[in-house]
């Protein structure tokens, strides 16, 4: 005779009854010998089977598995590497510290403006901290000034450029300085002793003006460009990356030396030498206030040498252009006309 609750023995044995069903079945088992004995026998059988089902596995399967995994191409991704976590942590901490240092130590812009005006200068990094000194700025002068003779006026201008360097004058004043340079003194004799000394020490040309040195004063050159005064600078500007070394050229004789030599030669009757010296003076300093006197002396030397006039192409007031191409019989007439124009008594 089988019990109707026998189907529940297996569920009860493996704990698959609900609490209510289990309570009911337990109450039934208390009264049903059949179910109770079956539970006991099944339980004893399970207890006997269990040790047989708890044996250790052979190592061969895991070894095979590891070998098969080793054969597979590596799919390990960079973000799953073991070093990634500490590395990212360190990098993140460093970044955090950097951000904190930047944000915490940096004053507020308004506070900075009120506290001191210096940060405003720092905010313009293109401008060099130190303005070029006066002689160097003079080296960056427009080419027309370099072609002109160096006079005491340049030295005076250098004094003014110091003011530029100090920021005491504006761009317009600087541009005016370059466009209309100060006039030089009437003569070497008009200079005071200090100015004479400085004038003698300053070379007439600036052979050491190279592109590299110009690049040091990039601000001034750029400003000059803006003002339209940089013509000719390009020719002097060498590539910045390969600055040419300053060439050591022998300094040309100064104006004073030339004038002195020319005067001495003229006084000594060395017409050829005096003529050449005055001609050089005229070529180098055509706007000099003594230029008319130099022309007269050249003409006098020409007369003395009885040579054809060499200043046909010089601005002599209009007279004898192309005169020395004329026939020889008319040369004397031409000389007389020239001498008359230049208020030089012609030698008969």
């Amino acid at each position: 005779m089988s019990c109707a609750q026998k189907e529940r023995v297996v569920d009860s044995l493996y704990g698959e009854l609900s609490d209510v069903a289990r309570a009911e079945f337990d109450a039934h088992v208390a009264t049903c010998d059949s179910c109770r004995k079956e539970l006991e026998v099944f339980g004893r059988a399970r207890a006997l089977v269990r040790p047989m089902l708890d044996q250790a596995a052979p190592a061969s399967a895991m070894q095979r598995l590891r070998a098969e995994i080793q054969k597979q191409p590596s799919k390990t991704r960079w973000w799953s590497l073991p070093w990634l976590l500490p590395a990212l942590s360190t990098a993140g901490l460093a970044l955090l510290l950097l951000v904190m240092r930047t944000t915490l130590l940096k004053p507020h812009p308004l506070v900075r403006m009120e506290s001191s005006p210096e940060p405003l200068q720092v905010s313009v990094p293109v401008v060099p901290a130190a303005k070029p000194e006066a002689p160097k700025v003079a080296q960056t002068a427009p080419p027309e000034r370099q072609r002109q003779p160096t006079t005491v006026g340049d030295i005076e201008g250098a004094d003014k450029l110091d003011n530029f360097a100090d920021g005491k004058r504006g761009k317009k004043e600087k541009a005016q300085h370059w466009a209309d340079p100060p006039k030089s003194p009437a003569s070497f004799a008009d200079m005071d002793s200090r100015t004479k000394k400085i004038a003698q020490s300053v070379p007439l040309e600036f052979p050491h003006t190279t592109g590299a040195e110009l690049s040091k004063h990039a601000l001034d050159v750029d400003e000059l460009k803006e003002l339209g005064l940089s013509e000719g600078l390009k020719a002097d500007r060498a590539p910045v990356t390969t600055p040419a070394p300053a060439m050591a050229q022998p300094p040309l004789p100064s104006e004073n030396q030339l004038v002195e030599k020319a005067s001495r030669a003229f006084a000594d009757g060395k017409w050829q030498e005096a003529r050449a010296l005055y001609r050089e003076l005229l070529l180098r300093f055509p706007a000099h206030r003594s230029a008319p006197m130099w022309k007269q002396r050249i003409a006098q030397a020409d007369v003395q040498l009885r040579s054809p006039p060499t200043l046909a192409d010089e601005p002599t007031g209009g007279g004898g252009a192309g005169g020395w191409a004329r026939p020889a019989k008319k040369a004397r007439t031409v000389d007389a006309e020239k001498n008359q124009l230049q208020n030089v008594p012609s030698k008969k």
Partner: protein
Amino acid sequence: MRVLFFVNRSDEALLIAYQKGEGQALCLLMQRYEKRLWNFVRRFVADHATAEDLLQDVFVRVLRNANEWQPRAKVSTWLFTIARNLCTDQARRMSVRKARSLDENSGDDERPLGEKIASHDGGAEEALLRRESSTEIEAALGQLPDEQREVFLMREVLDMSFAEIAAAVGASEPTVKSRMRYALEKLRDALTVAEPVVAQASESEKRL
């Protein structure tokens, strides 16, 4: 370090980690189920060497199918299903060989081997003489039909619920419970042979 990282992870997390390239994760997962899989395979096929080969096949099959596993499936159920399918395939092949050998004569005994196994006369007497319960239980377990043995082992060894077993074997839950009951009754019979007291109680119950 990576092994320690995966120690407390769930089975599903380990398998996902393997799918993302962590071979160590699959090794750790299989270490968790190695013993249960072995005992399941070992009791499913009687031969030790065959069971060992079969366990390797289970591991390799898991390795090859790991990338196809979907997170919605329970890893243990997925693993045991793989093991169960391989075991049933192996049991089917063995049954074919067994059937072939049972038809042949064995030794000097005129009766086929199948008749000797089916006969309870000599076996019961030997069993009574030995009174070795565990041996009887082990023998009874080996003589269970495959569908009963797999249900019993899945329940006892793999600790699967009857619902999970039903899903794994493709049968209804009452059918699974019925197979379980049959398996338990046969084990009880083996125990009755080994333990006369229990056997007597069982006989008296039958007479009633």
